[in-house]
């Protein structure tokens, strides 16, 4: 299938011929994102430079009923940017200007295609912190982060992307350009459309510009590591730390299988006999960081840690953090298809959930290791199999269905930070209930009467 020539000519008139690609080889790299298995072939890939160009493309698409899939860097893990119904993939990476970093207002204004790391670096150059730090921050765009409400390692202390979005410019599928929120911390005029657009996965509008909140850069940061006999002990330590009045910036865990895989891969000298590893860290004034790390260490020891080590230098901190950063690469080398999920449960139930995950994996005969964010209950059960073994892939999907069901049963959710996209659509009703899903679809119809914008994603 291909777009008719009139449509292609109109697209070329809007953005310029060199920014419209239709040849099979040109669109092939845009058939997938970072999500395994999912693939969709667009008829055109279009690279707009301005919100007005986006508006003109969307008006055309609505008029001609052409599906449009907005895309940033394509680093999402829920197939949110796969063009399942063909049509146009709208790539926003040309819109990459940092418009403003304002130290006196503590905010930044950026175009949607600016990379997360570029925003963080520009803020840091003025002594400011852009707090959200999703794992893909070196690749991802701010627009993509907002569209998926990206999380990261600092969720407990600093929250996630939605806590930093002050305002957005969005182009509606019918071509209107709206500005929601702005440079204000207080603003209750109208529904909170900024929050509605945040995490909407490109189903309601195309984000073209964002205003985000910044924080003063913390003076220093420190890290420590604790080993436990099992995750239950580590879970008790997490509860003890937080009820002691400490909100650490970092609180990450690896299960025994992850520790084994990381050690096999990176030889960091991790304890092979440990059932769980807890990585903790804090940032702020030096005396506060030092005191908090000591107290966290004491809490870990009191709840049965086998060993607690505080990093005495930044270099040592980096080495400890490497253990956590290595988790995914270490696991992914065990096979050729890595399915990384992010079921999330209330914080005190992490150990119980990991137990259930292990049981589910055993029942379905799939390998599954779990690491994640102990501070906010966001787990990353990860399954690695051979991409040519279809039976194993089928078992993995069944197992994850059970994992999601278990998470919901425990007052948790099917996805904490990756998003629903196409990948978790089938589990959304179980999480939201039919009434809420129906409302979600009515909201979608109000924004997008022709149903052209990222159709089918996020249950829409």
């Amino acid at each position: 299938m291909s777009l008719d020539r009139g449509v292609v000519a109109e697209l070329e008139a809007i953005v310029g011929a060199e920014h419209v690609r239709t040849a099979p080889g040109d669109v092939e790299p845009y058939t997938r994102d970072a999500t395994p298995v999912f693939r969709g072939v667009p008829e055109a890939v279009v690279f707009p430079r301005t919100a007005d160009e986006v508006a003109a493309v969307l008006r055309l698409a609505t008029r001609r009923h052409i599906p449009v899939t907005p895309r940033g860097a394509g680093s999402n893990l829920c197939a949110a940017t796969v063009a399942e119904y063909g049509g146009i993939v709208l790539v926003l990476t040309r819109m990459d200007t940092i418009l403003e970093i304002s130290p006196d207002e503590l905010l930044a204004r950026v175009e949607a295609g600016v990379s997360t790391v570029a925003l963080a670096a520009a803020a840091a150059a003025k002594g400011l912190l852009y707090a959200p730090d999703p794992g893909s921050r070196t690749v991802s765009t701010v627009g993509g982060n907002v569209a998926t409400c990206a999380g990261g390692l600092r969720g407990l202390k600093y929250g996630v992307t939605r806590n930093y979005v002050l305002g957005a410019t969005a182009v509606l599928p019918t071509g209107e350009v709206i500005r929601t929120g702005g440079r204000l911390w207080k603003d209750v005029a109208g529904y909170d459309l900024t929050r509605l657009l945040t995490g909407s996965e490109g189903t309601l509008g195309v984000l073209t510009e964002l205003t985000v909140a910044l924080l003063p850069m913390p003076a220093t940061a420190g890290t420590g590591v604790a080993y436990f006999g099992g995750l239950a002990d580590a879970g008790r330590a997490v509860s003890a730390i937080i009820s002691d009045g400490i909100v650490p910036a970092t609180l990450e865990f690896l299960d025994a299988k992850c520790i084994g895989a990381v050690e096999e891969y990176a030889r960091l000298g991790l304890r092979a006999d440990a059932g769980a590893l807890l990585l903790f860290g804090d940032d702020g004034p030096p005396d506060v960081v030092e005191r908090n790390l000591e107290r966290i260490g004491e809490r870990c020891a009191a709840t049965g840690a086998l060993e607690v080590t505080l990093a005495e230098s930044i270099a040592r901190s980096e080495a400890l953090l490497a253990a956590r950063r290595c988790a995914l690469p270490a696991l992914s080398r065990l096979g050729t298809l890595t399915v990384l999920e992010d079921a999330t449960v209330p914080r005190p139930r992490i150990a119980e959930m990991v137990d259930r995950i292990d049981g589910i994996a055993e029942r379905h005969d799939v390998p599954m290791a779990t690491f994640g964010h102990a501070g906010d209950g966001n787990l990353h059960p990860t399954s690695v199999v051979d991409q040519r073994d279809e039976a194993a892939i089928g078992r993995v999907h069944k197992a994850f269905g059970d994992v999601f069901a278990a998470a919901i049963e425990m007052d948790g959710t099917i996805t904490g930070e990756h998003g629903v996209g196409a990948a978790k659509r089938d589990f959304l009703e179980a999480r939201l209930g039919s009434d809420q899903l129906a409302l979600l679809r009515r909201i979608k119809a109000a924004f997008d009467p022709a149903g052209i914008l990222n159709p089918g994603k996020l249950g829409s």
Partner: protein
Amino acid sequence: VTDREIFDHVLLDRCISCGFCLPACPTYALTRDEASSPRGRITLMRALETGTLDADDDRLRAESSFCLGCRACEPVCPAGVQYGQLLEQWRDHQWRGRRRPPLVQVLLRVAERTPLLLLMGAVRRPARTPPSPGGPSLMLGCFERALYPGVSRAVRRVLPDVAVPADQGCCGALHAHNGESKRGHALAERLGEELPGVIVTTAGGCAAHLASVLGTDRVQELSDHLVRSGAVPRGELRVDGRRARVAIQDSCHLRNGLGVSAQPRELIAAVAEFVAVPGDGGCCGSAGTYSLLRPRDARRIVAPKLDALEAAGIDYVVAVNPGCLRQLQAGLARRGSTIRAVHLADLLAAAAGGKRLPRGVPATARAAGRARRLGGSVATRIRRATNRANSR
């Protein structure tokens, strides 16, 4: 869908499409188009493998040559994709027969004619000693011995014990990177027989290729060899009564393929003031045959690098690969820059009291013109040869 067996599946299946390679890729930085990124190119390779696209596809053709092959994507890859190997397999298929760029054809044939190399060696007078069984030997390189014969003489000053037998051929890197990986492998093995024992090389690209065949115990790039053997550079390099300020341009394959980047910096810092310049680990655009095949793109790649070098206020920039050396010399000459690009061996030899380095005086227009002619002359000759070959 049936697989065409163009690629080794173990390598091709490795990529998890996370996109972490995108910010490391120089060509993606130029275009911001996924197709010009490592992840996008692997998606294209997979389409070629499954038959979704044919080798005649314009985008496949364009990307197979637009890729620098610098392998900057490898160290940042969490999944351990061996992109360099995939690129070799891709070009083996993509550049078969008439699809191979004619210029590549000429270069490969020149490089494998040992008599021709020996003749170049005789005319340009690189270092020459009898073979020394048991000791390390210096690899002369197919084109380096003709373009930069002084480099091997400088190595002899720094490493007096190294033997430089004249009777040695090409290492085959050129072939491996340009669609003839089997031939490249065979040439590396032949060179391994011609130079028994440890092979020291002054070309990062050759080092990585040769080591992939003969192993890193036998193949050691100059800086790696010096640091491993505990050699301490002698002397000091001074300019205008002060320690010379010296930056480096890494060789991509040396850095990304063999992980050698600290060693040359350590050696420079021993004889001069080492200046870290932003981007000094990124590709200069020389990239083997790239600057000959795609001169415009090669210049786009090198431009920001030249800006950074000039902003750093340095006297010399050191290269550890002849291609990079030529690319930097040509680029600096085009700008009439006062910075001089030199090979690491030249720098170390000069510090130890050997041949003095060219002075970094402000270039006159005539000097710049001369450098341009020198830099361009080889390419021009080869291009003429290509045209002749094509018209036959």
